[in-house]
């Protein structure tokens, strides 16, 4: 279980987060939604242990997080891939850092590339890929190290509506298949409702928790067509609009 307790973060005079508390169960998916600049990326960095909060703390399986969390993989908004590495090398990077043997690495990476439909592009550099392919590479790289926790910062925001739905389905199936704990930052209400078993709504900066909404029906591709789904979207939209002028 991931437990964020009373976390605040200031960058100098800028208060980015204030007294944020939330819990994500093991194997659960959680969507974090909030206006631009409210501290979503900051929160994700704090959960992954890469950034120290100004106050408060994060616990994972009851252990306090003091440095980079080992079994977590992070996919960052816009900086997810290294443009100077080929698709193959990007995906292999985590394994290489861990000192995995080359033939084990090769097998693993090629398996992932195959699975994600990237096999033909293994020698390409990211700039030659479409947005959707880049995101798949970023996800493949995160998965290569078999993380128990997957943290994603607006992974689909650069995609057009159609590829976005495809990638949402992809993430949904991935989550069901691998049983990873997934935390996903998004701007989109529909995406939050489609992917988040728990939806955390943050206020404008400084980000505070405005509401935590449970979304138990999540988990099927045709959830998008169901009445409950529309209800949830409406509910979230109302929460966001309350007090916002």
């Amino acid at each position, binding site marked *: 279980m991931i437990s964020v307790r009373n976390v605040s973060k200031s960058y100098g005079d800028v208060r980015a987060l204030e007294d944020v508390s939330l819990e994500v169960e093991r194997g659960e998916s959680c969507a974090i939604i909030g206006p631009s600049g409210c501290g979503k990326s900051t929160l994700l*960095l704090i959960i*992954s242990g*890469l*950034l120290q909060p100004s106050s408060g703390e994060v616990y994972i399986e009851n252990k306090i997080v003091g440095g*980079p969390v*080992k079994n*977590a*993989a*992070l996919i*960052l*908004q*816009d*900086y*997810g891939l*290294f*443009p*100077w*590495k*080929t698709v193959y090398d990007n995906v292999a*990077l*985590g394994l290489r*850092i*861990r000192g995995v043997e080359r033939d084990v690495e090769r097998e693993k990476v090629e398996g992932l590339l195959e699975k994600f439909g990237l096999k033909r592009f293994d020698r390409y*550099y*990211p*700039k030659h890929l479409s947005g959707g392919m880049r995101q798949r590479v970023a996800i493949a*790289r995160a998965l290569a*190290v078999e993380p128990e926790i997957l*943290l994603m910062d607006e992974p689909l925001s650069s995609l057009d509506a159609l590829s976005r739905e495809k990638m949402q389905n992809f993430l949904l199936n991935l989550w069901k298949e691998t049983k990873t704990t997934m935390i996903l930052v998004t701007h989109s209400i529909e995406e939050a409702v489609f992917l988040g078993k728990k939806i955390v709504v943050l206020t404008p900066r400084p980000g505070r928790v405005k509401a935590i909404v449970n979304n138990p029906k999540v988990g099927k591709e045709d959830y998008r067509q169901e009445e409950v789904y529309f209800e949830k979207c409406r509910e979230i939209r109302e929460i966001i609009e309350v007090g916002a002028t």
Partner: protein
Amino acid sequence: MQGDKRDNRGWSYLGTLIILLILWKGLSVLIAHPALPSPEVVLASLINSAHELSRHAAVSLLRVVYALLLAFSLAFPAGILSREDTVDRLISPLIYLLYPIPHIVLLPLYILLFGIGDFSRVALIATILFFQIAVTTRDAARQVSEYYIYSIKSLGASKLDVYRYVIIPAAMPKIITALRISVGTAVAVLFFAESFATNTGLGYVILDSWSRADYEIMYAAIAAMALLGFSLYIILEIAERRICRWM
């Protein structure tokens, strides 16, 4: 596509060269003074003195290459490690205080310290290059987005990994550009460094033939020096294209 671009560049270099030659020819006809021989005369003397000149060109080339290597091997780590605030606090003031000083005036000092041998010459060129490369490398290293660092740290990277997989490759394009620019400086300083206490190098040939009013050799040596700078520049450009294929 890539090939097309390269071909186009080749043609445009050639076009520019032809225009320059035509201008040169026109000017030499117009002025009609032995101080400006026409291009074909220079070319002829370049060919005639090729054997003699190539010896000097090799010496000059070695001096520049040693200087580039020396400067790079000091400036690269100093610049890259300036990403660490502790290192930067130490190195940065030093660089920024000493950078604006015209280092060329250090030649007498170097000759007093290191003697009149080639080391003084190489050291002088290297000093000047050091600052150009170090300043650019430092800025490039410090501009690498913090988010790339987060990204690699989340994969469990050590400090060394961060440099190896992120900071150095990210800064590389700017560093090579700095190297490329510094080639021009290096050749200019080379000329100065070869202007006395030596009887080798293209700089020496230029000055010597100048004093003897042997303009053909002088121009041949000038052309050879330009060629030397140009070839180094091209080599670095090829290296850049290879190393920074991802750009």
